[in-house]
């Protein structure tokens, strides 16, 4: 708590996994109501998974923030250290992104087909879309880590912004 540590984010990730597992192992995970054949999540499991998701995103960005911004800031300008490895990673990830976006469009065209009754392969669509978002996030992270000049400000406490 005194600095941008990794203890709480790690704990959040472990706790998130535990909550997901609790929901998943619950024998009422996907209930099939008698009236229809479509399974649905119970309210309890939605609650467990909602907290698990928040903790996952929090833990992930917490660790990333420690990697990108460090645990303590020091005022001044800090030059990045670009090297060829992040460059290669950036190119590979960008190519992967282009490939996935093509694949994503394919899933949409597939879903827009009256012959198969407008069937949405939701897990596949969301998986590809989710992967694209993660890759974009990684690209920005790499760019920030290796190519942006970092600046740390020591602002006056009585700054007059916005008034």
């Amino acid at each position, binding site marked *: 708590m*005194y600095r941008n540590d990794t203890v709480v984010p790690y704990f959040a990730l472990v706790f998130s996994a535990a909550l997901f597992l609790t929901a998943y192992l619950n024998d009422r995970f996907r209930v099939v109501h008698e009236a229809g054949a479509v399974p649905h999540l119970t309210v309890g499991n939605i609650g467990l998974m909602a907290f698990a998701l928040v903790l996952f995103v929090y833990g992930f960005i917490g660790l990333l923030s420690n990697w990108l911004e460090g645990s303590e800031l020091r005022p001044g300008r800090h030059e990045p250290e670009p090297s060829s490895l992040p460059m290669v990673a950036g190119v590979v990830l960008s190519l992967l992104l282009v490939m996935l976006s093509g694949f994503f469009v394919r899933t949409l065209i597939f879903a827009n087909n009256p012959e198969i009754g407008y069937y949405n392969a939701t897990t596949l669509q969301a998986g590809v879309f989710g992967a694209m978002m993660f890759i974009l*996030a990684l690209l920005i992270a790499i760019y920030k880590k290796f190519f942006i000049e970092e600046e740390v400000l020591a602002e006056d406490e009585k700054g007059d912004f916005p008034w």
Partner: protein
Amino acid sequence: MYRWLDDRLSIGKLYAKAFRKAFPVHHSFFLGEITLFSFITLVLTGIFLTLNYEPSIRPVSGPLSGGQEVPAAYYSILYIDSLPFGAVIRSLHHWAAHIMIAAAFLHMLRIHLTGAYKNPRELNWIVGVFLLVLAILTAFTGYALPFDNYALTATKIGYEIGAAAPWVGKLLSDILFAGELSPTNTQTIPRLYSIHVLWLPLTLIALISLHLVIMIKQKHTQPRYAEKVAPGKIVGVPLFPQQAAMMGILFLVYIGATTFIAGAFLAHPVEAFGPPTANTPAVKPDWYFLWIYGILQIIPANWRFEFLGATFGPQFWGGILVPTLIILGALAIPFLDYSKEKQRYLELPSRHPFRTSFVIGVLMFYIMSTLAGYKVDLGLSNELLWVLVLVVPVVTGVVSYILIKAIYGKEWNQEVQVELRGKGPATD
């Protein structure tokens, strides 16, 4: 182009003032941002939903319902689910609502545990409490819109609680639901629709803006090492480009993770229960209402009396009195734990054992009352549940207080001296 804009709008000045505002760095600050991004996701996915949803219960039929006559609102949900990626976007809207409430709750816990509500941030704490209540109310008004048997029955539990408020309950629920909530009231869905997509989101936007402006004006609390690095100053990264990059990354990670879950586990598939029928399925309200539902389960039905024409029954005690007391208690926190000194730095939860164990006790209360919501499913007796709801939170709080004090010995109530660990010299 830049020169042209700068001449007219002085954007250079805007950059110097706004874009170079310093943002302190700490992982716990991301919880507020996750709440904010959930709201933004809700607005974006909500716009898509409004383009395809029909707020009416007039009977319609078509290929999507297999020729069967169903309410138009229900049919339009089947239509949204059939659009390419439509089912995922609708599910994402539903999941983002749950996540916003969970994130706002965890954000509130972090504010409480680190003492960030103290002078001068009392006002923002109060705005925050209203934001949480409003977020829950917005989610509640959206629940019935698909107009399936499940949503209607679950909303009815809330409707009955609202109507149980003495004297004004009936009036308030009439305003919210345009009369009685029933499968045949044609006015309810248009009313809920207007409130859910227009009035509550507009109020949320206004309050969130106020929350953020107050936060920027008052400056954020900082991790304590900053006191050694530059005393009396805000040590942080400029909004542009660094903070903006972190926010962009967080938004993408958030959207990536929630979309994946939303697609893999479709929330609220309307076909599971079908359109409203005469028989009501056994359903529970959403998890954030489950604790209230649990309290209602254990209050005996004969706790009831009449006063000046109003009935004070179990639904009043459990559904209105207890939540109102909790909200009032939350609003009072910054004034009960008042500090004359301005709060500049995050406090260590372990060095504030009373506050921390109080929070643990309150969490236990929510968990136990949620458990009471499963009274019938788990076959738990009323006596046992009363003990779990009232005694276990107190015992947990007391035990954690004793434990924290024992672990930290004499220094239990002092903030620890910070040793700088990061690279580079400290400046004055």
